[in-house]
C-alpha cells in the first residue's frame, strides 16, 4: 500500500491547562473523502490549524506524503500541496473574484515575484483562474468585488482560492457554514466533483451531508479522536451516539447554525 497522503503521529497541543489536542493519530489515504465530526469545542478547527502550521503543536509530527513537514511554515506547506479553507470567510474584500484567484495562481507559478512586467503578460495564469471560477459557477460574477458577492458565492470563492494552489490534500473547515440548506447541497456536489487525485477532509455538522459525501469519518471529542471508520460503522456505534449523535436513531435532524 502506498504512503498516506496525510498522517499525524501523537499530535498534541494545550493552551495552559486546557488540552485542545491530545495524541491525535490520523491517516488519510490518497483520494479519500474524509469527514471530521464532533461537538462544538471538540478541537476540529484546532486540528486543522495544527496540520496547516497556523498553530505550533506541543508534541507530535505531521507527515505529507511521508515527508515530515512539522517544522515548515504555513506557506511552504501550501506549496507542497497541503491547503485549507476557513470556517469564517477570509477573503480579499476589495479585490474582484478573478483578481483574488489570479493572485493565488500567480503565487503558485511564482509569477507573483515579478514586478517589472504587467499582469497582461501572464494570460495563462488569468485563464486558469477564470476556469476555476467557471467550474465553481462563479464565472458570471468574476469581475465583481469580493465584498459585493453573495454569501454563498463567497464560500465558493474560499474553495476557488484553495484550488488555485493545486492542492493534494484539501482541508475544508465547514465549507457550508452559514449557507442555506439547498445551496449547501450544491456546494457539496461541487466538492464531490473535485478530481479524485485530491484527498479531502471536511468538517461538517449536517449529518445527512456527512453520510452522503464522506467515505470515511473521524469523530473527535474533547481534543481526542474518539473513533474513525466508514459511515455505517460510525452511525451504529453506541459510544459515538451517546457523546455526539444524541438520541436520534439513524437520521439526525438538521440544526441551523450561525457563523
Amino acid at each position, binding site marked *: 500500500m502506498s504512503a498516506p497522503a496525510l498522517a499525524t503521529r501523537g499530535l498534541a497541543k494545550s493552551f495552559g491547562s486546557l488540552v485542545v489536542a491530545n495524541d491525535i493519530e490520523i491517516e488519510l489515504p490518497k483520494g479519500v473523502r474524509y469527514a471530521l465530526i464532533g461537538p462544538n469545542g471538540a478541537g476540529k478547527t484546532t486540528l486543522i490549524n495544527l496540520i496547516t502550521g497556523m498553530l505550533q503543536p506541543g508534541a507530535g509530527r505531521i507527515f505529507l506524503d511521508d515527508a515530515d513537514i512539522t517544522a515548515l511554515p504555513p506557506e511552504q506547506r501550501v506549496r507542497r500541496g497541503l491547503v485549507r479553507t476557513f470556517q469564517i470567510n477570509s477573503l480579499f474584500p476589495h479585490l474582484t473574484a478573478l483578481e483574488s484567484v489570479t493572485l493565488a495562481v500567480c503565487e503558485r507559478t511564482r509569477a507573483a515575484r*515579478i514586478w517589472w512586467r504587467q499582469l497582461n503578460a501572464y494570460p495563462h495564469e488569468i485563464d486558469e483562474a*477564470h476556469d476555476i471560477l467557471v467550474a465553481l459557477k462563479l464565472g458570471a460574477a468574476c469581475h465583481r468585488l469580493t465584498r459585493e458577492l453573495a454569501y454563498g458565492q463567497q464560500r465558493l470563492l474560499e474553495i476557488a482560492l484553495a484550488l488555485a494552489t493545486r492542492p493534494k490534500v484539501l482541508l475544508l473547515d465547514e465549507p457550508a457554514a452559514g449557507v442555506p440548506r439547498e445551496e449547501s447541497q450544491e456546494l457539496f456536489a461541487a466538492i464531490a466533483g473535485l478530481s479524485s487525485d485530491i484527498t479531502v477532509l471536511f468538517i461538517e455538522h449536517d449529518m445527512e451531508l456527512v453520510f452522503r459525501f464522506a467515505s470515511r469519518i473521524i469523530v473527535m471529542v474533547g481534543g481526542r479522536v474518539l473513533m474513525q471508520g466508514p459511515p455505517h460503522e460510525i452511525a451504529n456505534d453506541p459510544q459515538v451516539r451517546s457523546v455526539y449523535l444524541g438520541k436520534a436513531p439513524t437520521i439526525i435532524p438538521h440544526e441551523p447554525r450561525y457563523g
Partner: protein
Amino acid sequence: MALSETAISPRLYLAEQTRWRPAEILFWLATLTPYFLFPTYLSLASQIAITALFALSLDLILGYAGIVSLGHAAFFGIGAYTAGLLSKYGWGEPLSGLVVAAFAAGVVGYVTSFVICRFRHLALIMLTLGFGLLLAELANTLGWVTGGMDGLQGIHTWKLLGTFPFDLYGRAAYAYALAVLFILFLFARRLIHSPFGLSLRGIRENFVRMPAIGAPSRAHIRTIYTIAACIAGVAGALLAQTTETVSLDSLGFERSAEVLVMLVLGGAGRLYGGIVGATIYMVARDQFSGVVPQYWYFWIGILLVAVVVFLPNGILGGLTQLAARWSRK
C-alpha cells in the same frame, strides 16, 4: 454594468485596468503649466515634484502593502546626504548622483526590511519611528560628515546632461525633478499592475490569508520596502542637488509625518494621491505662511480633520466617487 460583466473576457478586463485614462493624460499635461502660468514659482514647483516623488514612494508601502511608516524620511535623508557628499567631494554629475543615492537608500532599506517584515500595525509604526529617530540622531552626532546643525555645505551640482545649468529661477530644476518624477511614476504604475502588485494588494487586504494561498508575504514586503527606500532616496538626492544644501530636517521626524499627512490628504493606494496631496499641502503652506506664518498648522489641521471625516479615501477618493456618481446619472 451587469450586462457587460459577462461579456468582457478576463484577459481584456485586466488589460483595461492598465489603460491610460484621459484624466491621467490631462494631469500630466497640467504639470507643465508652471512654465507658462507661474514662471516665478518654478522653484516651489520643483520642490513639489520632489515631495510628490517622496509621497509616491510612501504610497507603494502604505497604500499598496499596508505598511504604516513614521520613519520614511530616513531614506529621503540618506539619499540627500549621499548625493550631497558625493558632490561635495568632487562628483557633481546629477544623474549618476541619483543612482548612487538610490543604491545607498536601498541598501539600508533592504537591511531594515528584515525587521520590518515581521511586524504589523502599531508595532510597525513604533519600529519605523524608532529607526527614523536613530538615524536623525546619528546624522546629528556625525557632524564632521553631515555638517550637523549647520547643514551640509559646499555642494555644487554640475550641468544637467552636461548642457543645462541649474539657474536661480529653477527652470532646469523643475524640468529635472518633473522628468524624474514622471519616469519613476511610470515605473511604479507598472509595478502595481504586475503580478507582484496584485500580491501587495492581497497583503493589504488580508495579511493573514496570504500564507494560506502559499504566498511568501515577508519576501514580498522586503522587496517593496527596498524599492520604496530607493525611490525615497532619489527624491532626497533631487532636493540636495537642486537646492545645493542638505540639512538635518531632511531625515527628521517632521518630514516623515508631513509626507504621511500629504498621502492621507491626497488618498493612499491610488498612485496619484501622493502627488495631489503634496501639491495641495505645499501650495497651501506657501500661501498661508505668507499671510500669518504662525497659524499655518492651524489651517493644515482643519484641512486634515475635514478630509479624514468627510473624505475617508482622501481628496482623490472623494473625486473618484463624485465622478462615478456623475457618470451614473
